[in-house]
């Protein structure tokens, strides 16, 4: 079964606006990762946040992690049309040795 659930399922914003996506999970994790998938392509790793970290930045990306609430958020600032894609969170669950992906958020950035 899939570990994470992202919300919203779909998000449409204007270019230049910020986009926030959320991920909830159910079990203890070692780390949580965010991936992007452009239409018809493979997934690309964006950022990894460890269970003992609360916030991480990478360029226009900001990820937060709240292990007490078992949730994470991905913020994309100053969005661009090229950010249009599906975004997935993936959890590295304690005791497992692979990733469990959520259902994804489909982001559309309108030029």
């Amino acid at each position, binding site marked *: 079964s899939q570990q994470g659930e992202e919300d919203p399922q779909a998000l449409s914003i204007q270019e230049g606006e910020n986009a926030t996506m959320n991920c909830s999970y159910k079990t203890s994790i070692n780390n949580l*990762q965010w991936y992007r998938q452009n239409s018809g392509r493979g997934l*690309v*790793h964006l950022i990894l946040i460890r269970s003992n970290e609360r916030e991480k930045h990478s360029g226009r990306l900001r990820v937060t992690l709240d292990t007490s609430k078992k949730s994470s958020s991905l913020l994309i600032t100053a969005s661009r049309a090229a950010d249009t894609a599906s975004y997935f969170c993936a959890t*590295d669950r304690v005791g497992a*040795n692979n*990733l469990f*992906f959520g*259902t*994804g958020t489909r982001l559309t950035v309108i030029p």
Partner: protein
Amino acid sequence: EAGVAQSPRYKIIEKRQSVAFWCNPISGHATLYWYQQILGQGPKLLIQFQNNGVVDDSQLPKDRFSAERLKGVDSTLKIQPAKLEDSAVYLCASTDRMGSKSSYEQYFGPGTRLTVT
């Protein structure tokens, strides 16, 4: 460096036929994964190899799916016989992390889109 290669990119078959997918991971990556991604869902792990050994195949429908990585490099995933519900994108991924208790970033290939009619 070259990325993860997969072929074919697209495949259309009739139910009960057989199909095979091929994956070449990034050079030097010991760990290889096969995922199934049904439309509108996230990838689901089918099988994980470390070198030529299977680490996890608990989600692989072994009555019809098989996979091998004989020399610890390339891998093939086979479905025999295919069912309508096997229509999906099959993704291969690799990582250079091994022997670790934590998973790290995975590098994905472009996937093979399978349509079973």
